[in-house]
C-alpha cells in the first residue's frame, strides 16, 4: 500500500501500556492477577484458566461415569489435574525470553534423543518410542510437540517477516528431520501433531500462499508413496477401517463402531449421567482415555457436545487473542501455533471418536486420563499465559 499512514495515534497508547508492562487504561482488565494482593504476584490469565477448569470439571464428571463410578479414579484424576494446573501456573511465571533462549538447545537435544531412540530405544506395544535414561523412561517425541513450535518461532522471529525462500527451506528441514524420525518409531499420531505445530508457525509467520499450495501439492503426491512404503500395516488397517468400519466389526472397526453407536444413541439430550449403556456394559473400550468423548456424548447428547466444543473453541479463541496482542514476534508465533495445535488435538480425537478420522492415539485435552499428554498440554498452555502476562519491556517489536 502506498499510503504512509501516521501511526502515532495508534502507537501512542500501545507504547504507553506496554512500556510499563503493566500500566495503561485497560491494565486492570488485561493483567487482572494484580488485583488479588499477595496472589497478585502470580501471573496468569483468568479467562483461559476459567475455561480450562470448566473443561477439566466436565472431564471428571464424564470420567466418573466412564470408570464405572470409581471414586478412586476421580480422586486420582483430580489430583493429576491439580498438579497439571500448578505446573501450568509455574510455567506461566517464566519470562518468555527464557523459552526462546532454550529453544534451539532443547530442539537439538530432543533430536539427538530421537536418534538415540531410533538406535537403542525401548520397545513398547510394538513400537520403539521410549528412551530409558535409567531414572526415567519417556518419549522424546512428546517434548517436540512444544519444542518444534518454540524452535521455529525462535528461528523465524530472527528473519525478515514474510520468510524468504531460504528461511522456508531451513524451517522445513528443521521440521522434517524429527518428523521423519518419529514416523519411523512408528508413532503417526505424534508425528502429525509435531508436523502440524511446525506448519502453523510457518503459516503465522506469513508463509506465502504459493509455498503453501506447493506444499499441499507435494503432500498429495507423497501420500500414495507413504501408503506403500512408509506406513505400517496397523496404520493402513486403521485408515481402511475408517472408510468401512463394518468390514471388521470385531477387530479393527470395533472401536469406531462402538463409539459411533454410543454417540448416536445418545440423541439430542443424552441418556443422562451414569445412564450410558454402551460404556456401562463394557462395549466401549478405553472409555476413560481416548474414547471419553463417546461416553460423554452418550450421556449428555448433542447439547453436551455443543457446550464442550464451545468451551474448547473459547480456549482457542483466547489463545489466538493472546497471540494477536503479543508483543514479540516469537511470542505471537508461538502463542498462535500453540492455540492451533490445541485445536488439532481436539479435532483429531473428536474426529476419531465420531468416526471421521482414523483411530490414532491422540488424547482429548483435559478430558482423557493420561499423564504425558496432560503435562505437554499444560506446559504449552502455561507458555500461552506467560506470553499473555509478560510483555516485552522494550515497548516496541523486536
Amino acid at each position, binding site marked *: 500500500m502506498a499510503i504512509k499512514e501516521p501511526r502515532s495515534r495508534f502507537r501512542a497508547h500501545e507504547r504507553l501500556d506496554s512500556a510499563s508492562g503493566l500500566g495503561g487504561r485497560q491494565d486492570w482488565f488485561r493483567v487482572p492477577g494484580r488485583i488479588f494482593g499477595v496472589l497478585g504476584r502470580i501471573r496468569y490469565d483468568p479467562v483461559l484458566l476459567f475455561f480450562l477448569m470448566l473443561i477439566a470439571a466436565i472431564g471428571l464428571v464424564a470420567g466418573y461415569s466412564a470408570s464405572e463410578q470409581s471414586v478412586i479414579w476421580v480422586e486420582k484424576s483430580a489430583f493429576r489435574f491439580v498438579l497439571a494446573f500448578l505446573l501450568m501456573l509455574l510455567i506461566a511465571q517464566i519470562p518468555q525470553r527464557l523459552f526462546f533462549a532454550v529453544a534451539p538447545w532443547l530442539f537439538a537435544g530432543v533430536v539427538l534423543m530421537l536418534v538415540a531412540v531410533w538406535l537403542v530405544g525401548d520397545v513398547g506395544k510394538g513400537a520403539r518410542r521410549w528412551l530409558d535414561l535409567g531414572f526415567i523412561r519417556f518419549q522424546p517425541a512428546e517434548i517436540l510437540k512444544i519444542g518444534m513450535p518454540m524452535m521455529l518461532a525462535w528461528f523465524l522471529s530472527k528473519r525478515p517477516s514474510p520468510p524468504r525462500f531460504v528461511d522456508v527451506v531451513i524451517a522445513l528441514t528443521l521440521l522434517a528431520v524429527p518428523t521423519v524420525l518419529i514416523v519411523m518409531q512408528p508413532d503417526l499420531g505424534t508425528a502429525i501433531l509435531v508436523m502440524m505445530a511446525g506448519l502453523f508457525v510457518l503459516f503465522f509467520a*506469513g508463509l506465502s500462499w504459493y509455498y503453501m499450495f506447493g506444499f499441499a501439492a507435494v503432500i498429495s503426491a507423497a501420500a500414495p508413496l507413504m501408503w506403500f512404503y512408509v506406513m505400517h500395516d496397523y496404520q493402513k488397517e486403521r485408515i481402511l477401517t475408517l472408510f468401512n468400519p463394518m468390514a471388521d466389526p470385531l477387530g479393527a472397526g470395533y472401536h469406531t463402531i462402538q463409539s459411533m453407536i454410543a454417540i448416536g444413541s445418545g440423541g439430542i439430550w443424552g441418556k443422562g449421567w451414569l445412564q450410558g449403556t454402551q460404556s456401562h456394559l463394557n462395549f466401549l473400550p478405553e472409555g476413560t482415555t481416548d474414547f471419553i468423548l463417546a461416553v460423554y456424548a452418550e450421556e449428555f447428547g*448433542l447439547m453436551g457436545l455443543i457446550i464442550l466444543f464451545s468451551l474448547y473453541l473459547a480456549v482457542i479463541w483466547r489463545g489466538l487473542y493472546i497471540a*494477536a496482542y503479543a508483543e514479540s514476534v516469537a511470542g505471537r508465533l508461538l502463542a498462535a501455533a500453540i492455540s492451533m495445535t490445541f*485445536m488439532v488435538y481436539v479435532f483429531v480425537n473428536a*474426529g476419531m471418536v465420531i468416526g471421521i478420522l482414523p483411530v490414532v492415539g491422540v488424547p482429548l485435552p483435559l478430558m482423557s486420563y493420561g499423564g504425558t499428554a496432560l503435562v505437554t498440554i499444560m506446559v504449552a498452555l502455561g507458555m500461552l499465559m506467560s506470553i499473555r502476562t509478560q510483555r516485552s519491556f522494550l515497548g516496541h517489536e523486536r
Partner: protein
Amino acid sequence: MSIRDSFRDAQHDALNDRSRGRRIFRRRVLLAALIAVIVFSVLIWRAAFLQVDRHAHFSELAEKNRIRTLVIPPERGRIFDDDGRVVAGNIATFQAQITPEDATDIKHELVILQDVLGLDDDTLHDLRERIRFGRSFDPALVNSDLTPYEMAKLAQLQPWLPGVEIVSSLKRTYPYGRLFAHVVGYVGRINVADLKRINPDLYQGTQYIGKSGIERQYEDILHGTPGHKEVEVDALGRVVKVLKVTPAVPGRDIHLSLDVPLQGIAAASLGSYSGAVVAEDPRTGAIKAMVSRPSFDPNLFVDGISRKAYQALLNDPERPLYDRAVTATYPPGSTIKPVMALAGLQYGLLDPDKKFFAGPYFQIPGDKHHYRDWRKWGHGWVNLDQAITQSCDVYFYDLAYRMGIDRLHEFLTGFGLGEKTGIDLPGESTGLVPSRAWKRKTKGQVWYPGETVIAGIGQGYMLSTVLQLAQTVSILAESGKRKRPWLVKNNEFTEPPIQLKNPAFWQDVRHGMLDVVNSAHGTARRIAAPYLIAGKTGTAQVFTVAQNAQYHAKDLAKKLHDHAVFIGFAPYGDPKIAVAVLAEHGGSGSGTTAPMARRVMDYYLGYQPSKVVKPEFVQHGD
C-alpha cells in the same frame, strides 16, 4: 474484538517491514480463527448427524448390543461297565453364586452366606479375592453341592441377598467310588497345564476335564461340543429373553469291558494287601477286571480336592494314587518260567522229556557263587513238566545260562515283555527286559553272566507290570495268538501271533502250568478246582538274602516280605479267562495270590462251590 482490531490494523499498517509482518500475522490469525470455527462446525455437524438424523438407527444398535451369547456346556458322556451299569455318571447339583454388581451390600451378604452355608475362613477369603479380581458382572461361585436345607434357607433369605443365585449344574459322580478309581480315573477342574493341550473354544463353560484313566484317555469322545444361546440382556446384564439356541452336543457314552461284580470280587480277594489284579479274556483281549489297591475316592477330585486331603493321599506310605496294575512294575519272579521254557524249546536247548538233575544250587563253571533253589534240598531228577510244576529254580538257572542274555532278551521282547501292551489307558509302563545294550547305556557296565542266571527266574533287573503278566498268560492260554488288551471296544486289535518252530512246544509248557495246579507236586495244588486251572506261582524278591542265610518270613518286617505273584488261565481246554494277581509283601504266590485268582475265576466261570463238576483226567500232552 481481536479479529476486528487486527483487521483494522491490517488495513492501516504501513509498508514497514515489521508492521507488514504484523499485518500478515493478524490476517492469518483471523484466518485461523475462521478455520477453528469451521473445524468445530464440522464436528458438531457430524455429531448432529449421528445424534439426530441417525439417532434411531444407533439406538437400535445400542439395543442390539444388549444381545449376549451364552455358552451351553455339553453334558459329559457317561461310562458304563460291560453289563450297562453306570461307572461314571452325572448328577444334578445346586450351587450358590453371587454377582457382585447386583449385590447391594456385599460385605453383609458374605457374612450371611458364611453363616448359612457354614463356609470356613479360607473359603471365604478365597471368595473375597475372586470377587475383588473378577469382573463385577461375572458371577462368583460361593458353594456347590447345596443341601435342600441350605437351598431353603437361601430362598428364605433372598430379600437380604440380592445378587445371590442358586443355579443347577451337572456334576461328575462315580457311584462305585474307590472300586474303579485307577482304571476309570477321575475328572477335575481345568488347570493351566490342561489349557495348553485343549482347544479353549470347545471348553467354554466347561469346568471339568479328564485327569486320569479312561476319563483322560477318551476325553475327546466324552466331552462333546458346547452349544450357544443368544439372549437379550437389560442394561444391568440380566437375561430378558432367549432369542436363539444352538443345543450342545453331549459327549458320547463309553462302554467298558470291565464287569462291576468281577471287579468287586477281585478287589475283595486282595483283602488287606496292596497289589493289583488284572483279569483278561484271552480270546478277545478284553480286560474284565483291573484292580489296584489301596485305592482312593475319585469323587474327592471332582470339585477340586482340598489341599489337606490331597496331601494325605500323597503322603500315605501305601501310595493309594499309584496305579499298581499298569504303572507300577515288579520283578515277575517265577511266573516268567513258562516263557523261559518256551524260549528254551524254541532255541533247541531243551528236550521236554529229558531228565535234568537239579541239586540245591547252581554254579557257573569256574565260579564259587551258589545260585540257590527255593527248596533247600533241591528237586532231584526233573523233566520240563516237573520243573515248571515244582518251579525248579536250578533247572531254569541252567537254561538261562546256556541260552545267554541276548537270546533271552530277544525271545522275551518278542513276547511283548519290556514293551507297552497298548492298552487304552494313559501312564502305562514299559517294564524292563534287561540286555547288554541296556546295561551299558544306563549303568555303564558290562553284562555279567550271573545276571543272566537270575534273569532266568525273573529276578534281577527284570520288571513287568501286572497287566503285562496278564497279557503273557493270555498268550500262553491262546498258544501264541495275541490280542491287544482293551477296555473300550475300539481299541481291539489282533497282533501277529508268536510262531514257534514246533506248535507242540506250547502244549508242553501249558501242560506244565496245568500240573502246577492239578498235580500232587504243583506249587498251586491247593487251588485245584473242579474245572481245570493252569497257572504259575511266583515270588518276587524285594530283599536279598545273604549268601549263607535263610529266608525266614516270620523274622522279617512286612515291608521286606517278598511280593506274591500268580498268573493263570482257565478252563484249560478252552481258556475263557486269564488272571494275573500280585500282592505286595504277600509272601509266596502259592499261599497268597493263587487263591485270589481262583476266586476271580470261580466267579467269572459261573462256578459255585455247591455245584458238582465232574473231575476230568488229563493226559500229558493232550
